[in-house]
């Protein structure tokens, strides 16, 4: 379960860091909570929404730094 515990640790890090797009991360956490609480498996739309959020963050991380 360590990977799942990391979810909590990382979510707390996001909060502690207090960065400007916090509301986006909060909305994502709420979304995940809803999916996990649902009685059914994640739908194709749920997976797609997860991938979209993830890709947005990957785009930020992978965008060239100035001078790179």
């Amino acid at each position, binding site marked *: *379960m*360590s*990977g*799942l*515990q*990391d*979810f*909590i*640790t*990382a*979510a*707390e*890090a*996001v*909060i*502690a*860091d*207090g*960065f*400007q*797009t*916090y509301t986006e*991360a*909060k909305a*994502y*956490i*709420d979304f*995940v*909570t809803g*999916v*996990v*609480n649902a009685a059914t*498996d*994640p739908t194709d739309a*749920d*997976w797609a929404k*997860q991938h979209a*959020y*993830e890709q947005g*963050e*990957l785009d*930020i*991380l*992978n965008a060239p*730094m*100035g*001078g*790179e």
Partner: protein
Amino acid sequence: MKLLIAFALALTLGACSSLGTVISTVGAATTVLGQVQKYYGHAPKTVFAARAGFDIALTAAAHFKQDVCPTVTSQPFCKTVVPILRTGAAKTVAALDIAETFVRTHPTLDATAAIDAAEAAVTAFAKTETDNGVPAK
């Protein structure tokens, strides 16, 4: 040491966030963990939650890069740390993709190995972050 001081300052500044908002978010995250533990063995949700854990860790890494390392020379460590985070993220995505494909294609088969590998990848990514100074808590 300078890196640690910089992050201590960042955390202090971050403390200005609304306490109520912080508490509600921690509550939401805790609910996720509780529910996933309840459903452990339910492969699709386990992978979904593990992927969410990575996504939050990734969020921290992405904004660390954006805020602390907007340019290669913003800090002495940017040139080396950001590529490490990028590589770690790519490896984790690959492991999560394998696990996700497995549970979505074979929802009734034992996915323990794929899930364990995905969770190990998420844990490794989080460790990479903390080892390189991305605020962990």
